[in-house]
């Protein structure tokens, strides 16, 4: 049995993976499947069993829960109700604030547990949003990606820009007061001006949090196939050399042209400057928030803390061990919870704590770098790392060349 109530460690973060999508996006390489909706009922049952097998009523309370996907909002309210039957005992009802005052959620105080859900604007209506909020979900991460219908189509999204705006308003109306917008830049055929417009539109909604990702062309995705044969997308060799665009290849009706490295850099710089000026804190390579709205769940990843992953393809990390569930839904459903995980754990390398931690702009404390003194000195000399009294963190140059830093620690 894998009951996680061993007194030697505690889990405060729980991830639940929902691997269903209406349609798979052209850039997506996550564990998610379109056209397998028939398996949803059975899947939710298995998820509930897995939760039950991991926790007891005596387990310590959770401080973050994250529903990711896939498209979690594809589930119906009754599915969430079932899951929450198992989760509710693990969620503290109130939190003790700094002054020792206890304020309940209903009083509008800080909620004891950050419960996030990823939402696709094409998959939920007002009623569903309301149920989600009532069940206790208090953070909504909306997969907007772009406000340009042409780009949304190239990405393979199932919604329009207008859908996003309506969905955003519905979410606010349903009581969500902690909303993130996910955006992607350096899209095929996107200009700097296009991106500036996207970012401005997003800011105009006044979200509490913004995640802005430079598009990564992942192996095995339709984007990858339409760009190859070329070296790995992460070797930006060809991308920096020509003016304007390169990597041309037919992609459906149009031509897939990716912005070059200079343009990517300009987009990233613009994002950092604009959002910082507007009062957002740049706290992770791709993440910005209004003060106090940093995503606690994701921070637990970057600080390499313990977390438990439930569902197909979900990864867990507990006390230096990492493991994952099978990616295949059918296999996950068939495997009795007590036999999970099927994939054997691997030991977490100390370098991982460093390269994950350096993603945070505050960096991590110096003691994590024991044994890497030579690397730190070199990287500091080349202007990629900087040290203060407690922490080591990336410089601005180091931020742009983070991989050059990270690979010194693996």
């Amino acid at each position, binding site marked *: 049995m894998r009951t996680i109530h061993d007194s030697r460690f505690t889990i405060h973060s729980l991830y639940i993976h929902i691997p269903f999508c209406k349609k798979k996006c052209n850039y997506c390489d996550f564990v998610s499947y379109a056209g397998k909706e028939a398996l949803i009922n059975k899947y939710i049952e298995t998820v509930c069993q897995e939760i039950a097998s991991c926790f007891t009523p005596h387990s310590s309370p959770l401080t973050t829960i994250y529903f990711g996907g896939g498209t979690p909002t594809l589930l119906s309210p009754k599915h969430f109700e079932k899951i929450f039957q198992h989760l509710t005992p693990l969620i503290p009802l109130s939190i003790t604030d700094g002054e020792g005052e206890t304020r309940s959620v209903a009083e509008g105080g800080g909620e004891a547990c950050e419960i996030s859900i990823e939402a696709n604007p094409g998959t939920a209506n007002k009623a569903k949003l309301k149920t989600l909020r009532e069940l206790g979900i208090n953070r909504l991460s909306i997969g907007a990606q772009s406000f340009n219908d042409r780009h949304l189509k190239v990405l393979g999204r199932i919604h329009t820009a207008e859908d996003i705006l309506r969905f955003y308003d519905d979410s606010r109306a349903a009581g969500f007061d902690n909303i993130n917008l996910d955006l992607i830049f350096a899209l095929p055929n996107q200009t700097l001006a296009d991106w500036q417009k996207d970012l401005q539109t997003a800011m105009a909604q006044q979200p509490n949090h913004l995640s802005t990702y430079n598009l990564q062309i992942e192996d095995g995705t339709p984007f990858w196939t339409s760009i190859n044969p070329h070296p790995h997308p992460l070797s930006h060799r060809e991308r920096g050399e020509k003016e304007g665009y390169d990597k041309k290849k037919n992609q459906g009706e149009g031509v897939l042209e990716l912005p070059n490295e200079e343009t990517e850099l300009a987009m990233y710089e613009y994002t950092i400057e604009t959002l910082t000026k507007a009062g957002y804190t740049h706290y992770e*390579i791709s993440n910005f928030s209004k003060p106090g709205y940093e995503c606690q769940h994701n921070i637990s990843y970057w600080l390499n803390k313990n977390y438990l992953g439930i569902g197909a393809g979900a990864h867990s990390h507990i006390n230096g061990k990492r493991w994952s569930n099978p990616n295949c839904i059918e296999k996950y459903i068939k495997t009795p919870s007590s036999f999970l995980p099927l994939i054997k754990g691997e030991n977490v390398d100390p370098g991982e704590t460093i390269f994950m931690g350096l993603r945070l702009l505050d960096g991590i404390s110096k003691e994590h770098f024991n044994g890497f003194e030579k690397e730190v000195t070199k990287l500091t000399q*080349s202007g990629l790392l900087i040290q203060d009294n407690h922490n080591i963190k990336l410089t601005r140059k180091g931020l742009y060349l983070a991989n*050059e830093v990270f690979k010194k620690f693996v």
Partner: protein
Amino acid sequence: MLAKIRNFSIIAHIDHGKSTLADRLLEFTHTIEKRDMREQVLDTMDLERERGITIKAQAIRMEYKGYILNLIDTPGHVDFSYEVSRSLAACEGALLLVDATQGIEAQTLANAHLAKQNNLKIIPVINKIDLPAAEPAKIAEELFNVFGITEDEIILVSAKDGHGVKELLDSIIKNVPPPQGQKSAPLQALIFDSHYDSFRGVIAYVRVINGEIKTGEPIHFMGTQGNYEAIEIGTLKLGMQPRASLGPGEVGYLVAGVKEVKECRVGDTVTSTKSPAPSPLPGYKPIKPMVFCGFFPLAGEDYENLKEAVGKLQLNDAALTFEPETSAALGFGLRCGFLGLLHLEIVQERLEREFNLNIIATAPNVIYKIIKHNKQNLIVDNPSSMPPATEIASIEEPYLKLTIFAPTEFVGPVMTITTEKRGNFINMEYLDPTRVMMTFEIPLSEVISEYHDQLKSVSHGYASMDYEVIGYKESDLVKMDILLNAEPVDALSIIVHRDQAYPKGKKLVEKLKEVIPRHQFTIPIQASIGAKVIARENISAIKKNVLAKCYGGDITRKRKLLEKQKAGKKRMKRVGSVDLPQEAFLAVLRLGK
């Protein structure tokens, strides 16, 4: 006794089925039982199996119908043609093996010439007749056109299914002449191969021509002037079978406490110290390396290990030479000499595989003869030791006679790539209406610049080549230097023909730009002749390299990706502030593509 011995080898082009036929002969004569048979018993080195070629010769003794049949295997590559000729000198007959689907190829012809020079009885064999594409009648016609071989001499076999093997064995007994030789004459035994065994020292493979070699007797190597004692002698089946003596016509091995194979040279004559032969057997020549390159360890502290490893390989490889080399760019390394490109590649691969060394190999080059204005003669095997152009009166480089076999439709492309590489067309002959043999004279330096790959590519794999060195010729050559970040990198210097300097310089800097990874600063690449820059490119600085996304489920994958990027860098050699991959040193060879 002599009347019952037959010594023969199999000569063939690569992939015409020599090793498979050898396997069948061993099986048919019950030298090896089928259950003990590994495919291609005679190719024992892993590399030989993988590359499908024989590098070292070996011998094996079979017994059949009261006869002793000694099969002496020969190396299958032009780099080793001297070894082939010595193996053939130990035989009275040769099976000329031709693939029924391919016909005569360049090495078939080259090896047949060697066999004729050694007065061997040739038994023509057409192999692979089991294949649907086999055209034995057409091949027979080629054999007649090229060698004057008539159809009734030819034996048709399938080494794969054993068809014709019995007839072949009978024909060997009937047609290969028995060895001649006098037991009472002074000892003359030909060393046709040797290998190093870490327990017993060098094991020499010998063919006794005259006299008798006996265990315990003092012996003398007439070429290297070495004196030893015959500690153990014997014959070769699958293992070594000790015997008290070997008489004329016999083939076997000799263990004499020799420490290195260079003390026991292929082609040398073993004689008895007590009553030495008046003269050695003909044909011995010390082998000289033709192609040179520098090996440098990626990590400077590996230099001693590299030296030790090359030394170990040399114990078993008399053709491999080395001496210390110091490069301003690459530090301490070894300048190594090889018989040819294949030999070089094999040594490099063995250093990496068997000794676990990470090395950079510089582009191979040939030996140049330089005559200076002050009448001084210089031998240069390294572009960086070339004297300044102002001191040079003339430069000579080694030339080859290159023979190419190809279907007629590829004559044009073969002509184009060969003349582009400074080849002079000499002659063309038709083997039959569909295939030709072309002859060129061409500098060796051009042939080692991926000529073989280009030939295979323009002929869709149908052309084959062979060559022999014909001597030195004067050429208008210049040294071209490469500068990275304005610093010359001595290990990238090359010697090129003056007419090709500009286009080659331009292509080379372009190629270097492609293979050198971007750094955090801009790197200018320049090609220069003397002080004059003839080509320039810039590698732009890397400005952004960051993984946008990394959450809980991504960590393992992203870490692997970072590890891969890092591993790529580890395989590079830092020169000044620039990391150079192995490809940068070989870029000069890849200018044709």
